[in-house]
């Protein structure tokens, strides 16, 4: 079934960078699976998974990527996946909660929330934050499969966040799907 690799790329953004990266993988006869990219303040980052022939090594992929032109050097990390993607995906919890935290910006806010999650056995699946004026907003997608009482988490989270001047809302992911997507049940 070939070799699954996970690749991470970071560079200054420019038009054509996605075409160059995926073109390189195509030339190595790789088959793309999941891909996620984001641009933050003109910097481009991408994480992607692809399957290659057994003969292709992570070093070959890094070497092929090095030919892609970039204003900054293209930072590339490639790892061979130890657990097949299908199994890693199947592990994903159905108990996904969305946490939003908003408050006046100061340093240590993300650390405080992420430390809270760690201390309560909650894995962060996705995290996005924005700074708008002096208002800081965090949106986290959390895996609650190891959580016994959502109510207890909500209570201690609220008091911990209040100390930091953050107002938090914790809701099941289904609520957001229900209010934002057309097809549902």
């Amino acid at each position, binding site marked *: 079934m070939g070799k699954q690799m996970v690749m991470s790329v970071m560079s200054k953004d420019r038009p054509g960078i996605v075409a160059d990266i995926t073109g390189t993988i195509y030339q190595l006869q790789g088959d793309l699976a999941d891909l996620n990219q984001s641009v933050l303040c003109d910097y481009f980052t991408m994480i992607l998974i692809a399957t290659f022939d057994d003969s292709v090594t992570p070093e070959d992929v890094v070497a092929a990527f090095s030919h892609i032109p970039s204003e900054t050097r293209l930072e590339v990390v490639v790892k061979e996946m130890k657990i097949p993607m299908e199994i890693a995906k199947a592990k994903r919890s159905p108990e996904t909660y*969305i946490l*939003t935290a908003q408050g006046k910006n100061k340093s240590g806010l993300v650390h405080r929330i992420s430390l809270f999650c760690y201390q309560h056995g909650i894995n962060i699946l996705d995290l*996005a934050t*924005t700074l708008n004026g002096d208002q800081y*907003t965090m*949106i986290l*997608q959390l895996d609650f499969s190891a959580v016994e009482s*959502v*109510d207890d988490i*909500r209570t201690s989270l609220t008091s911990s966040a209040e100390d930091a001047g953050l*107002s938090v*809302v*914790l*809701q*099941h*992911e*289904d*609520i*957001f*799907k*229900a*209010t*934002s997507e057309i097809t*549902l*049940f």
Partner: protein
Amino acid sequence: MLRSDHILATVEMIQKENLDVRAVTMGINLLDCRGGGVSETCRRVEDKIGTAAARFVETCNKVSQKYGIPVVNKRISVTPIAFVGAGFDRHGFVELALALDRAATAAGVDILGGFSAQVEKGMTATDREYIASIPEALARTTKLCASINIASSQKGINMDALALIGQTVKDLAEFTREQSGFGAAKFVVFCNQPGDNPFMAGAIHGLEEADLVLNVGVSGPGVIARALDRLIHTRGRENLGLDDIAEEIKQTTFRVTRCGELIGRKVSEEMGIEFGVVDLSLAPTPTVGDSVGEILEILGVDVVGAPGSTAILAMLNDAVKKGGIFASKAVGGLSGAFIPVMEDEILAAAVGSGALCLEKLEAMTCVCSVGLDMIPIPGSVDADTISAIIADEMALGMINNKTTAVRLIPVPGKEAGEVVSFGGLFGASPIMPVRNVGKSSRFIAWGGRIPAPIHSFKN
């Protein structure tokens, strides 16, 4: 994939706008509970409700906790009781009422509806006994609600029943004199009563329904009001037209309805009961900021009752239906805006200032849900006048093919302008003056029926 702005819009709705599910109502068929006599029937009724609703409140609480959205009321509706107690006399119906009250208490629900009858065309001897039992039945119970359907677009208005009902409302208030006539707040008279409405006091489990069914009432006038405030604040009043306002109401209703449907379907899944409908009504509560009247004021009348109130309400009602119907797989019940005076702080204030009169309310009920709801009137108003007010409202429903209802409270010993308060969800209001009292008796004395209206040539 969920987008940040969508997430934040939903968070706003939950955090700042007090989004809730107003009612989850479990419908229970009682037709199979009929025993040889009154006591055996009562026992079977209690058993069936006890078994069917054993895990109901617990399940609602569990789902509500999981999703972080409160379910304000857990309710039961049953088969209209006049069918269950066919052949019983008034004392038998009072016993049935007490049994239903015990069952509701045991199940831990807030309220139970369905002490009801359907007499839109004619009354049986049982129906007359049932009507005679209403004042005592409601005075001696705490969780029971009663309703009666006395008119429909297909059958016309049963004026014999209507004549009895005016007196029943008076007697109900008199039986609960110590509580300012509160008994009358638990009794509602309908034209075109739906069999799947989860809202009280008019919830029944219609004869057309399955054995057990779960209906959900979503509400949220507060959510709509805050969404409109925000829209006007961010875009500026001068840059908006009423079509933009209608669109905002529609989209907000969509989101509110989706949450209600999600909660309802999860409860029904957990309990293994069929999911019925979402009723997407705007039902106000006496809480500050949860008022339909406030929405009318935001949309441009300085006081509810001023010219323009009916037009705004028509637009609001329609936009709510459009948003909700697209959001839900199955919409039913009443689905529209309610204007219950005592339960809506802004409407009650408009009554107090004299801006909102009975006739304007009647006009407003032509374009929204339900009808003359939770209106305290002077205790001195006679039974025939009450019957005639009900007749007018029934005629609106009959001709316009819509549900209308009347819940008037003739407050014993009090006159117009004095304040009456029932507390909790039932609210408070100054007593509304009634004009032309005592001038409709010759009309009510006719009895018989107002024939069903023609269903074509509609102009």
